[in-house]
């Protein structure tokens, strides 16, 4: 495959937009009239001049060759990232060679792209010695880690006490106590430097108002929190893999120091979740040869999209290294060998029964696991009262959709795509049901994002 590769689709470009307004503004600029002197190079640089409201056109450059997602530069004053000009330019590029012909970049574009690639290469080269210099004072680092572990232990012990008090007085009483109780406890866990515990405690607060069956869910979550506390307090006696999982769940930082696995990674899904402080982006990858599924996590400040963006339907030839912990899908993207390119490949699928079993097995390594990534093959979306199911085409068993998935517009795209016939769907399968994220066209083979 050439460096230039195949051009992306408009959907894949629009997936880069930080918000809905940018999507719209970018779509409008994705027409030839706004642009002049546009072009793209074999190295994966795309450039163009966009007529704005001022007298000088904006200079827009995009480097699409980076596996960590495209990089952008634009002379416009917008603080959106990528700005509408970068999106418009990529849309134009996606539309074909008429508007953005292959060529040699002008100086202003070439300088930026070359500088960027040089810096990336330097950073990569400096990566190994850099981590060594970080551990320049191993004594001090160890002391810091010990102090933090003591704080967490104190926090976990306090949390155990609070859980015991809660169960002594009864969950019904907790319903009346309301949200404040949990917020305060969560703040205590933040002080204890255990962000994982803090997040779980905060989630507990929302359960009493989450509809019928809440006592069961609250007891389950309290019990799993208790299990995590106990895991931490007795981590020395756990097998190494499980201990690492506990550390990750508690919220201790890890580094992706697993062995690098080179593969052709399909981008299966990308979606964002946001809370008051943070936007979290999840990207699911599937290794064509290894059969592994990996999760890339990236973060952005509240209201801003994380920078890493890999549109669904692309495949990248790259190395991926796992974070520590048994049963943890999280990984980091390492060295890439070619820019991402569209693919028609799709992962092999399983039946609903196999998917449920896969979740059950995964709990062995990580009992706190909410769901596992699964590709279901030959399933039909079927209405079931107020909810929906994915039914095996060949048997009579079905996975219900999660309440979150039922409320999304993606559900209707999936139903429309299926038309009552079997489809292949990738998603997350867990104890609350199945959340579809991506589906594939039966005939065309293209992807349809559902999240």
């Amino acid at each position, binding site marked *: 495959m050439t460096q230039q590769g195949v051009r992306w*689709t408009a*959907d894949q470009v*629009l997936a880069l937009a930080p918000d809905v307004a940018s*999507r*719209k503004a970018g*779509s*409008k600029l994705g*027409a030839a*009239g*706004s642009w002049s002197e546009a072009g793209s190079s074999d190295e994966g640089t795309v450039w163009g001049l966009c*007529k704005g*409201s001022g007298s000088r056109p904006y200079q827009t450059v995009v480097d699409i060759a980076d596996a960590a997602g495209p990089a952008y530069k634009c002379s416009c004053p917008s603080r959106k990232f990528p700005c509408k000009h970068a999106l418009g330019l990529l849309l134009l590029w*996606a539309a074909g060679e008429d508007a953005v012909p292959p060529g040699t970049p002008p100086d202003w574009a070439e300088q930026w792209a070359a500088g960027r690639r040089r810096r990336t290469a330097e950073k990569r080269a400096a990566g190994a010695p850099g981590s060594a210099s970080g551990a320049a004072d191993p004594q001090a680092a160890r002391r810091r880690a010990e102090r933090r572990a003591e704080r967490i232990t104190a926090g976990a012990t306090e949390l155990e006490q609070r859980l*015991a008090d809660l*169960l*002594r*007085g*009864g*969950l*019904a009483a907790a319903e009346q106590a309301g949200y404040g109780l949990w917020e305060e406890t969560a703040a205590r866990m933040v002080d204890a430097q255990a962000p994982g515990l803090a997040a779980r405690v905060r989630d507990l607060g929302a359960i009493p108002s989450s509809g019928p*069956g809440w*006592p*069961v869910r609250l*007891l*389950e979550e*309290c*019990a*799993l929190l*208790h299990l995590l506390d106990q895991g931490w307090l007795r981590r020395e006696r756990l097998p190494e893999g499980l201990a690492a999982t506990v550390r990750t769940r508690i919220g201790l930082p890890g580094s992706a120091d697993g062995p690098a696995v080179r593969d052709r990674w399909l981008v299966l899904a990308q979606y964002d979740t946001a809370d008051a402080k943070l936007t979290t982006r999840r990207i699911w990858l599937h290794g064509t040869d290894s059969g592994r599924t990996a999760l890339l996590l990236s973060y952005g400040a509240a209201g801003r999209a994380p920078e890493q963006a890999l549109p669904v339907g692309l495949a990248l030839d790259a190395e991926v290294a796992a974070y520590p912990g048994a049963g943890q899908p999280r990984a980091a993207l390492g060295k890439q060998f070619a820019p991402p390119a569209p693919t028609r490949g799709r992962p092999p699928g399983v039946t609903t*029964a196999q998917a*449920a079993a896969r*979740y*059950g097995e995964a*709990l*062995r390594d990580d*009992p706190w696991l909410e769901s596992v990534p699964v590709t279901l093959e030959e399933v039909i979306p*079927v*209405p*079931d*009262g107020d909810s929906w*199911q994915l*039914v*095996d085409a060949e048997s*009579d*068993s*079905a*996975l*219900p959709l999660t309440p979150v998935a039922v409320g999304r517009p993606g559900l*209707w*795209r999936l*139903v*429309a*795509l*299926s*038309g*009552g*016939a079997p489809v292949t769907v990738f998603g997350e399968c867990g*104890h609350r*049901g199945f959340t579809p994220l991506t589906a594939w066209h039966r005939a*065309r083979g293209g992807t349809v994002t559902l999240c």
Partner: protein
Amino acid sequence: MIRTSAPVEAPATGAWEELVTAALLGTDRRTPPGGTPGQEAPVALLDTAAVQTVRRRAGLRPAPAAERPEPAPPDPRPALPEAAARRLALLLADRPGAAGGGRRGTAPDLMELLPQWLAAANAHGYAAPPEALPALLDAARGRTDLRPAALVLAGPRALWLARLNPDWRFALRAAPGGGTALPGPEDAERIRQLWEEGLFAERVALLASIRERRPAAGRELLAATWATERAEDRLMFLDSLRTGLGPDDEPFLEQALADRSRNVRATAAELLSALPGSALSARMADRAGACVAVDHMRGTPTIVVEAPHQCDASMERDGVVSKAPAGRGERSWWLGQLLEAAPLGAWSARLGGRSPQEILALPVADDWQGELHAAWCRAAVRQRDAQWARALLGAPAAPEAGGPGAVSLAERAKLLGTLGAGERADWVAGFIAAHGLSEAFQLLGVCAVPWAAPLGRAVVDALEIARDAGSYPWSFSGVMGLAERCLDPAEANRLDGLLAVPDEAEDASPGAGGYWAEAFQRLVTTLRLRCAMAEELGGRVG
């Protein structure tokens, strides 16, 4: 929830229930099952619950399947080309609230292009990609003007979807018979059944579709049950005979002239008067002929008008309304109706073998000219008489064509509708060249899209003149919007000279040049976009 697998040990489920109860009430009030001695009760409860929770989750099994819906009917139409499918997604993504902001800038208004795109895609006979159907249905839900074309593109699968989502019920209402296809003309049994038992809307749709293909069969269907229909239904059914109206319909319409309902009688008379060879037309020609004559005794031949003195029963039977609206003289009101219904072809013989042009050029005595010419306009539109319409329109550059003459802009637009597309475009082009754009909006609306080359050039020239005259472009935003949608995309290159900001003339409105450049840039961008859209669909946007 997914069902938990059948418990291996029977007490497991019961034990879990007991745990939940104990947790809910608190261990102070209820001692939980199990637990090791020496352990605090709440901790023991949490221990057991943790084991049970993981155990329950690990044992989850799929649920039994609910009843599967019937699969969507197959859609044999070819799929949209991929580029066109992406374009559709973009056009639909632009929909909600895109109009925000006062100034429109140089970017095209994608939403305004959606109707055109839908029409072009339907003309090619493509089917919408299934994953685009939800967005398409949402768009059609918000804009009723998009519905017919959107639902055609969406096809049978959209109706299948609409049955699953109450938000899209409108699609089922819009499609007659809740989406079941209308029977073909050969399926006599189903036609009869639907006609006799169907809902009113279904029957109207059925009649319209049959009438379109086989006018006679449609009329016979209606005649069979005519006597038993309710008056307001008769009116609607009679109105659908407008499609495919021909001499064969005369006996049926003649009979409807004796209907109990006045509205039905009036509609029947109107339809008959649109048939120049009908007996009613002949009667009307006699009545009207008696009122209008050429007086040769004056210096120049002059038309003299003698309005009818009464409205007799036979006139009323032929659809003449005897009671004049407030503020109109009875006699001129009757005259107008007679002239409107009389066949125009008869006037030449009646008025000395003159052509329509010559007749219209004759002076008219006693201020009857306005009344007379206005009635002839209505007659020309009703009878779709191009020769008279041409004469009534006159030369587009004539001075009275621009002013508030006898023929209003609305009437002129209707008269233009009786001419062929080419002639219509030429006339409007001539009108714009002579009178500018200020009155042109309504006339442009009746021209075929894309505009013929002379018309497009006339509009662009007039816009350039308006710019040079120093006004602001938003005084012409209506025409500008039409031009974006209707100008032939091939004209885009001619506009290159207008894109730059012109030097500001002394008497020009401040900053107008910049706004004009922006407006022309948007025009060119939109034209290029339409060109690209047409290419993606594999043809011209028509």
